[in-house]
């Protein structure tokens, strides 16, 4: 049997992080495994790299829908796709 202390309090941070991480992987609109979620004080911080600006917006939308009362800080980047300027020699 699960013993609930502090009914009404926010769930422990680790479960929130695990839930968001699984949400981002398993939601078909996102399917991102490359996002790190950190819960700090009263805000969620999202880090990571995605392949398009659209995906960054989808992630923000999904997380803010699930946790409407939590302020979210996003530091998600879009990965560059320029041609390389250097080659690597492997003799």
């Amino acid at each position, binding site marked *: 049997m699960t013993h609930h202390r502090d009914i009404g309090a926010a769930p422990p941070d680790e479960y929130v992080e695990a839930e968001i991480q699984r949400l981002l*992987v398993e939601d*078909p609109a996102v*399917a*991102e*495994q*490359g*996002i*790190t979620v950190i819960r700090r004080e009263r805000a969620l911080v999202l*880090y*990571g*790299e995605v*392949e*398009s600006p*659209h*995906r960054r917006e989808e992630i923000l939308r999904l997380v803010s829908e699930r946790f409407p009362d939590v302020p979210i800080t996003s530091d998600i980047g879009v*990965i*560059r*796709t*320029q*041609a*390389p300027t*250097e*080659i*690597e*020699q*492997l*003799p």
Partner: protein
Amino acid sequence: MVIRIAAVGDVHLDEDVVGRFRPALEELPECADVLLLAGDLTRHGTEAEARCVAEEFGGLAVPVVTVLGNHDHQCDQVPQVVKVLEDAGITVLEGNGVVLDCAGGRLGIAGVKGFGGGFAGRCASDFGEPEMKAFVRTTTDSADRLGAALRSLDCDMLVALTHYSPVPDTLAGEPLEIYPFLGSYQLGQAIDSAPTALAVHGHAHAGTERGTTPGGVRVRNVAHPVIKQAYSVFHVGDQLDTDQVSPIGQSGSQRSWS
């Protein structure tokens, strides 16, 4: 003899990404003999996403050779995905190989997706529940097929292409706890069973670029979030032009994998 190999993995294409890689890909004929794709071409492995891959990576002036990744299996449409890619002229490897005639010689590429399991001393064993045995046997079968394919190719230079990593070196930056989901030592053993010149993989989005198998084969993680450019180019051969030796940037620092 130098063969010029371009490679990238984990491009995770869908409609929203189409066109982003193309300008850099158009430059390929000037700098590479072949483009290797190290799996996770799509987000969910749908036929529609495969068409995006065909549009972005098809019709290039260099041959394109790929393996699939775990994401390309998500929707159980592997046969359809493979057909769309092959119709676009992309060679899809899984337990087999291909030999390409390049200016610098015959390049043999053997590929498998690979699977997890972990690395020597910290790996899963073929023991216990059927689920565990199935997991480990998937890895072993995959590695066996890679080794056989590598040893079967008649060529001047041999390259191994996988999605999962054959070594822990190129996972540095990932949480240690998930290494068993990122690769397996059996893939490295297969690579070392043949005179392989280079092993290329993806999957570890937060890993690092460079590693070596216990047998001394160079390993490169070319996951797009790691290399942070459209593709990397390796000049593999017996000549070293010191003017062209240059360091490639450090990998990213985000902790993630896929």
